[in-house]
């Protein structure tokens, strides 16, 4: 199963400020009543993008100048809470191809990586620097370079970090493990055979 090598993502950025943005906020539970992931993009951050009456609140991702953005920036502990893959799916289907945050919740990070969405960490002041540059010029191209571990924007750049296993997977085109896991099936049977509870009743 050949996967693309995701070495960098370039495009416009949008900053969604806040810490502890949980996956219920990223995609409210009622939109998970579905048997396919299609169509989730329009419900990204739905309940903060709309008032209870359904009136748009002017959320950053709805601002005309940020339309078509592919890089999402946020604060600390992004994606905490529920393990729903619907959250990174909604982010991806809304057009985002990379997320920059101070840090990520564990399950969200793994889910995103498996979908080929680089989640990279940056210092708060550096994220603020990129956010300020976007504010000044929303059309500015932001490049998240996973190989070089830096984000370039205009003539400036910041350093980013990423867990090595995720970085390796992305840049070498093995971010979705299914192929590797299937290759190991003979070894899986051997491991299972050593565990009494794995035998058929």
């Amino acid at each position, binding site marked *: 199963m050949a996967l693309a090598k995701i070495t960098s993502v370039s495009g416009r950025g949008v900053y969604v400020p*806040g*810490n*502890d943005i*949980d996956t*219920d*906020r990223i995609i*409210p*539970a*009622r939109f*998970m*009543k*579905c*048997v*396919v*992931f299609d169509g989730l993009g329009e419900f990204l951050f739905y*309940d*903060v993008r*709309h008032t*209870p009456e359904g009136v748009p609140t002017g959320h950053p991702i709805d601002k005309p100048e940020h339309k078509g953005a592919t890089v999402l920036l946020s604060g*600390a*502990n992004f994606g*905490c*809470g*529920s*393990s*729903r*893959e619907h959250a*990174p799916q909604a982010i991806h289907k809304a057009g985002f191809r990379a997320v920059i945050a101070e*840090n990520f*919740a*564990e*399950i969200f990070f*793994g*889910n995103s990586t*498996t*979908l080929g969405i680089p989640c990279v960490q940056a210092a708060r002041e550096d994220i603020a620097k990129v956010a300020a540059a976007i504010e000044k010029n929303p059309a500015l191209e932001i490049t998240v370079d996973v190989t070089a571990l830096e984000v370039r924007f205009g003539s400036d750049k910041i350093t980013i970090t990423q867990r*090595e*296993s*995720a970085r*390796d*997977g992305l840049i*070498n085109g*093995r971010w979705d*493990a*299914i192929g*590797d*896991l*299937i290759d*190991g*099936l003979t*070894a*899986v049977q*051997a*491991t*299972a055979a050593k*565990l*009494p*509870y*794995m035998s058929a*009743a």
Partner: protein
Amino acid sequence: MSAQPKSLFEKVWDAHAVRILANGQTQLLIGTHLIHEVTSPQAFGMLRDLGLKVAFPHRTFATVDHIVPTNELVEPYKDNLAQAMMDELRKNCAQFGVTFFDRASGKQGIVHIVGPEQGITQPGTTIACGDSHTSTHGAFGAIAFGIGTSQVRDVLATQTMALGALKVRRIEVNGKLRAGVYAKDVILHIIRLTGVNGGTGFAYEYAGSTFDAFTMEERMTVCNMSIEGGARVGYVNPDETTFAYLKGRPYSPTGASWDAAVARWRSFASDTGCRYDDVIKINADDVAPSVTWGINPGQGISITENIPSPETATSDDDRAGIIEALEYMKLPAGKPIKGVKIDVAFIGSCTNGRLSDFQEVAKYVKGHKVAPGVRAIAVPGSQIVGLQCEKLGLDKILIEAGFEWRAAGCSMCLAMNPDKLIGDELCASSSNRNFKGRQGSITGRTVLMSPVMVAAAAVTGVVSDAREVFAVN
């Protein structure tokens, strides 16, 4: 013994490690795969697209919990989308040979209640489920992971997933909890101490004399909310309490294999002197009946404390968090949380929807009435829990007090079913998350607490100290 002392986490990990993958992660065997209707349909779809089958159908178990209505028993359900998810799971289980605990089986319930109840959850095993509260099963000395849908696909197709090892933090709680203090208060206390992301990258080992004395249901309540503190995995070392709980369950070993299993299970407990990446010690005496006041489970206080105000913030982040939370919760800064008016009382969920939760509530609400204007619902975590309660007459006590007694499901914990808050209703809830909009209304408000504290709020109509309301001492 010459071998290096190891923690339970390391032992279970080593026993299930298949091989190291090219990216440095481990291909880890997942012995038990639990699935439900919300996070599995797309995974089965991917399996079909790839032309794969379920590798170990006999180690895969399904139930339906998130979307089932708790006041509507007959299909088709009024909600077409819920019915479609139900049909999809039924079809997938039949096609791929997976055991399905549906309502007709009499064993349906919240997946984290069903596993232990059936004896499927066992010490020294690995468990995965497409739900972040899978850490619940760690109460048995299992390593249990909440996973996303692509990983559900991975586990269905290969019974393994790719994972990096976690660090281990031992959280030791010692002493006897004071009267009116419950396991729920212990975990709310821990999350308050560590913050909502303090556990990122860690597996939690809960230990100490408080945990030694806990029942399995109490251990499950604590392990359940590990993820609310950022820890994907939480566990308690298996002991006699664990084995006694498992004895005689439908999927527990029997006869000679029972003794062999117990010996094996015992061997997985952490060795004395093993290395931990971090240790936290808590005195049981310091744990008070706790409630949340904000929009994440780390924003909690004891019932006797005042709601924080921006002036008391310890950092800029804390200040911003307090302002955002108070604005959403419409609560007065610096005032007591006690006395805040509630609209709804919810007892249930994978955190607190077990027999002992309803027994404890029934013991105290007997002779009391739910306050006028409060909607109170009690939802057993499984059909079996419901039946046990009914055999003991607990349902009658709750109904007599003014609670609605419902059928098993996730109900108002996440409101993917008809049980929802309306407008900005404030809910005293025994569930696990107080995120904005979590209970089904975009402006709905959640105050997390133990089931007995929910009962106290229900009968007084305000957030209350159950020790006072029910004269607990």
